């Protein structure tokens, strides 16, 4: 599409427009009022509301469909136009009772209210008619009130084509149409994934968060038997809407005094959704999305939209705890910090600074991670500082740093959306990165994007994929290398790209000798036909993005497989252009940022090596201390060092290592060996049970800071509440402790910490809180002038000579516990709960949807062992034993099992079974390489997954809302054919072109 600019005339005045824009878009950009209820910038044209009619060169036309053309003359104010708009709005108000003052949606942002008001409507042409359906209150988080529903179809559009869950439709065939879920079942029993898209886009109060109902307004809590006659009476006596709106506006303005709206960034996965959180005192009323949000717009998932109850949970730690004998005793901050300072000093003095390990949190902010590594290095004198990327993404970072130079996604969501071909290897974004997955699903459904999924499990993206490949566990690298070799053998590589921009081709070529397609067929179990089909798809695609996650990185050969992905992208020339690149999907909200800001043993902030003297000199000048020279221990080293008695103390924050580290039996026994253990958390976690001192920390809603998402995008979040009880923000705790250990820190606000980091780390030179106000964001590297870099490597790669490197990598045979352990154990997250669930299990509605953990077994295995849903089995690996109830599903095949990690119960947690084997380069545990044997404990029982879970729903895929069916109804008269407009001929204009 060209972007040529020209002018158009609206009401006799000239306005600038760009080719491809629609009239309504130009009008809105120029602040010329044209009504429009169904149109939404994130959804586009829906054509159901008919309120946006304007006159274009003498013809009445929907301004949301008609594209602008040079010299076009548009009239938005004539009598004919007003009549058409009035007719359309009256049809809407026939479906929607205006009782704004007593409506919970009267918060200044109700599309219907504002449109009626802006149109200056005094009365409606047709009286309101209730629909013959009761409200649907079955879902735990939102309700549908048909009587208020104007059938604009925004919710359907959002569900079908933006979230692409395909649950909602409008049934235009019944006498009184309504929105239905699946095949018209109660919402709670449908395929609804509770993402909140439909509620987020509803232009009125038909779909509303239950947390708002009766709660948002001053008068909305009135009992229905008073409210109904009040509404009747108001309607009876009202002279016109203007006077009524005056009252409702006053009420809406009053609400602003008590409902606080604060921008925040989601604290679950690495996608980095941002939105407002609306609160009344400490009560969270709702999450309100904004089109301005750079990553997600109006999109959310169940956790980001509804999973915030943990903040006010009664289980929150509110006082420091000190171990005394067999119990923890509440203490003051002074006692706790003194005890920590005393013990850490003593251990440092007796055993040296490296006898203490520091484990940082990828749930906490960039500023907190920066300060923690400053504390470990600058105050305590050790590089023994690591974060939980060690459990997930370090191999991906290594693969990228080896080949292209920077350990982050090559582009942004824009690139993933723009890609011709998206290949997802060992990742389940539809559950683990839901909003990112929506963009892939949308591009695939609407814009012809091709999708390949390589996975053991047939997850949602796999179901939708053009090609789903199921290789044998741990053999992805063979497939990747074989394809790269085939491209080179056939002469299909991007030769000029390799010539100009890449080093190491010859050595790489010779390393591929054994990786013929035949070898790949033999080792991966894929067919030649499948491999050739994948080759063909890559060859035909103008741009390829490869996305991967734990299915790649939690293996013994993880760094090498990540490298192989990047190699393949280099061979095919898929870097540095829109729609191309490598996308390791970061799991936590701030995995990227924790690594970026220096909580890694070999790296100072911005990936500047600690063993580089000039780097250390820079920090010495700033901090006034000598920094330790040698890279420190990573998490895995630390556990080993504790086990060997070399490490005596550990300080850990925002991380439940006792559950998330592999081989937890071993980790637990190691913790028991520590002389001193400090755990800082919001909750009394499993890890905290081993601590000597537990410090109560504050979550993101109780502090300011920034997170960096998987795109490398830095975004600000703002404090909503004061910290609960005596809990404190992590950065403040570090500062208070550092000052007891001789520091003289005086940070008043996290922005000052960011200023310091930006001054020191080249990668963030131009980052400041001023540049990150509200919805602004920066994608690193950020130059001093504030220029950021959404797409990397457009001109050069991040090596001194600007060239990428092809790095030879070989297959590492996965860990095999032996023939006794005959079932392969896969594991991972699920949509509803985050990780082991310590945050999400505080939300009743989420627990209603997923109360328990379950084991997925294939229909073949179920038949073989005579198992059915609900049967209880015991799984035993060489390292431990768990007992879980099964669900039979064809998402898993043959002898492969899937055990989600949403449990903190010792007897169910998957890490009771995993080993201490790890990626040979980064020490990331090989969680995905385990075999187990199964014994049946109970042949039947209550299925662990309730039938009202979305996995049992029945999706109804369609494109948009099928407005044509509305137009074909016998009771539908096109606006241009109504009596008031009949005199002239204005033409039928449902289609713009």
């Amino acid at each position, binding site marked *: 599409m060209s972007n040529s600019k020209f002018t158009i005339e609206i009401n006799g005045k000239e306005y600038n427009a760009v080719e491809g824009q629609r009239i309504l878009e130009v009008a809105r950009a120029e602040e010329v009022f044209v009504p429009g209820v169904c149109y939404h910038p994130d959804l586009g044209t829906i054509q159901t509301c008919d309120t946006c009619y304007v006159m274009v060169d003498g013809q009445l036309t929907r301004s949301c469909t008609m594209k602008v053309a040079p010299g076009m003359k548009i009239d938005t104010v004539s009598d004919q136009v007003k009549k058409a708009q009035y007719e359309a709005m009256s049809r809407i108000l026939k479906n929607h009772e205006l009782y704004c003052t007593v409506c919970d949606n009267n918060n200044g942002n109700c599309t219907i209210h504002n449109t009626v008001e802006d149109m200056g409507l005094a009365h409606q042409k047709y009286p309101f008619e209730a629909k013959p359906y009761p409200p649907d209150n079955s879902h735990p988080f939102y309700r549908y009130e048909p009587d208020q529903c104007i059938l604009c179809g925004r919710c359907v559009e959002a569900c079908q084509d933006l979230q692409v869950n395909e649950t909602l439709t409008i049934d235009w065939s019944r006498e009184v149409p309504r929105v239905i879920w699946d095949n018209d079942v109660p919402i709670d029993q449908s395929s609804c994934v509770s993402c909140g898209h439909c509620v987020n886009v509803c232009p009125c109060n038909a779909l509303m968060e239950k947390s708002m109902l009766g709660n948002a307004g001053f008068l909305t809590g009135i009992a229905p038997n*008073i409210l109904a*006659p009040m509404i009747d009476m108001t309607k009876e006596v009202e*002279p016109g809407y203007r*006077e009524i709106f005056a009252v409702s506006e006053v009420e809406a303005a009053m609400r602003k005094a008590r409902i606080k709206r604060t921008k925040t960034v989601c604290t679950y996965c690495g996608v980095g959704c941002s939105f407002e959180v609306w609160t009344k005192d400490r009560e969270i009323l709702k999450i309100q999305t904004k089109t301005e949000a750079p990553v997600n717009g109006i999109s959310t998932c169940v956790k980001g939209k509804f999973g915030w109850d943990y903040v006010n949970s009664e289980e929150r730690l509110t*006082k420091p705890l000190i171990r005394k004998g067999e119990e923890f005793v509440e203490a003051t901050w002074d006692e706790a910090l003194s005890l920590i300072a005393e013990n850490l000093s003593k251990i440092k003095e007796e055993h040296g600074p490296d006898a203490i390990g520091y484990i940082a949190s990828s749930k906490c902010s960039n500023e907190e991670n920066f300060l923690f590594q400053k504390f470990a290095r600058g105050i305590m004198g050790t590089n023994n500082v690591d974060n939980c990327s060690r459990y997930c993404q370090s191999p991906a970072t290594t693969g990228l740093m080896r080949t292209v130079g920077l350990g982050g996604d090559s582009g942004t969501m824009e690139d993933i959306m723009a890609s011709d071909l998206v290949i997802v290897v060992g990742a389940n974004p539809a559950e683990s990165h839901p909003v990112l997955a929506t963009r892939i699903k949308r591009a695939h459904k609407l814009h012809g994007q091709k999708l390949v999924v390589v996975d053991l499990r047939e997850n949602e993206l796999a179901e939708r994929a053009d090609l789903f490949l199921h290789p044998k566990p741990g053999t992805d690298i063979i497939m990747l290398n074989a394809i790269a070799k085939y491209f080179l053998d056939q002469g299909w590589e991007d030769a000029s790209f390799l010539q100009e921009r890449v080093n190491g081709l010859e050595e790489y070529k010779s390393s591929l000798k054994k990786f013929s397609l035949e070898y790949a067929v033999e080792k991966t179990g894929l067919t030649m036909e499948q491999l050739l089909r994948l080759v063909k798809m890559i060859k035909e695609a103008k741009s390829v993005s490869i996305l991967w996650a734990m299915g790649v990185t939690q293996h013994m050969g993880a760094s090498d497989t990540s490298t192989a992905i990047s190699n393949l992208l280099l061979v095919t020339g898929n870097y540095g252009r829109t729609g191309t690149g490598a996308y390791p999907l970061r799991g936590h909200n701030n995995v990227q940022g924790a690594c970026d800001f220096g909580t890694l043993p070999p790296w100072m902030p911005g990936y500047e090596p600690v063993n580089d003297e000039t780097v250390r000199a820079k920090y010495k000048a700033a901090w006034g201390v000598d920094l330790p020279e040698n890279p420190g221990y990573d998490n895995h080293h630390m556990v080993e060092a504790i086990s060997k008695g070399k490490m005596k103390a550990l300080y850990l924050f925002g991380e439940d290592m006792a559950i998330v580290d592999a081989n937890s039996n071993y980790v*637990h026994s190691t913790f*028991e060996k520590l002389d001193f253990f400090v755990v800082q958390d919001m909750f009394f976690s499993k890890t905290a*049970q081993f*601590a000597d001192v537990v410090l109560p920390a504050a979550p993101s809603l109780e502090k300011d800071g920034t997170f960096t998402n998987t795109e490398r995008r830095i975004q600000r979040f703002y404090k909503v509440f004061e910290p609960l009880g005596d809990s404190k923000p992590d950065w403040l705790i570090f500062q208070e402790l550092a000052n007891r250990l001789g520091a003289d820190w005086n940070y008043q606000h996290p922005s000052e910490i960011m200023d310091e980091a930006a001054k020191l780390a080249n990668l963030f030179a131009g980052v400041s809180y001023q540049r990150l106000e509200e919805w602004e964001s920066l994608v690193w590297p950020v130059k001093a002038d504030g220029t950021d870099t959404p797409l990397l490597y457009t001109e050069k790669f991040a090596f001194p000579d600007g060239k990428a490197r092809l790095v030879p990598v070989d297959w590492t045979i996965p860990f095999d516990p032996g023939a006794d352990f005959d079932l392969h154990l896969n594991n991972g997250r699920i949509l509803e709960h985050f990780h082991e669930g310590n945050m999400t299990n505080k939300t009743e509605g989420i627990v209603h949807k997923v109360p328990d953990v379950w084991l997925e077994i294939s229909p073949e295995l179920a038949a073989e062992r005579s198992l059915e849903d609900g049967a209880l089995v015991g799984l035993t690996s060489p390292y431990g034993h768990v007992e879980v109830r099964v669900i039979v599903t064809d998402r898993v095949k043959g002898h492969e099992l899937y055990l989600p990690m949403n449990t903190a119960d010792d007897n169910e947690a998957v890490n009771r079974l995993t080993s201490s084997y790890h990626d040979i380069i980064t020490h990331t545990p090989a969680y995905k390489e385990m075999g187990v044997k199964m014994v049946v404990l109970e042949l039947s029982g209550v299925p662990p997954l309730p039938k009202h879970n979305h996995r049992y729903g029945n999706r109804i895929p369609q494109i948009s809302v099928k407005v044509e069916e509305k137009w074909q109804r016998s009771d539908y008269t096109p606006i241009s054919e109504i009596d008031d407009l009949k005199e002239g001929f204005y033409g039928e204009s449902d289609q713009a072109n």
Partner: protein
Amino acid sequence: MAKAIRLISRQVRNETEERAQAAEEILKSLADNKDAVLSMIEMAKELHEMKVFETAGALLKQRNEVGVIAMQQVNQPAVHNVIKSGFGLFQFLGGLQPAQLETLLNGVTLGLKRMSQTGEQGKKQSLWKMRIRLRSPAIRAAMTTMVDFMEGMGEAFLRSREKRE
């Protein structure tokens, strides 16, 4: 050597301590706002004597039932009419031009003054004399205005009839 433990001994403050602290906070607030509190008590005494609290308390306790009754009473055609007439009157006043109204009211004031003088003096005038006075510009101006007024009113009546038909 630290085994995992789950036992937390929380310093649960007993009821007496909590009450003591609450009482202390209340006393402090009272002392800080002595004058305001004393005048409030004075006012409360008067209100109590008038049984305001008793009445309001009963109303509040039964607010739902009372609300229903109130709405039943209020949601009646007569009340609708009062409110609608209220709106109508408001619109009528809003529609008037202040300058016109001023002229009109000046006229009415002066007219009333003359009228009262006539009333006080009680002197009747002959028809002839009155006929001669009809010629005066002042009377003619008033008559023309009255006819115009009637014409306007008639027009509104007719429009309203048309609308009904």
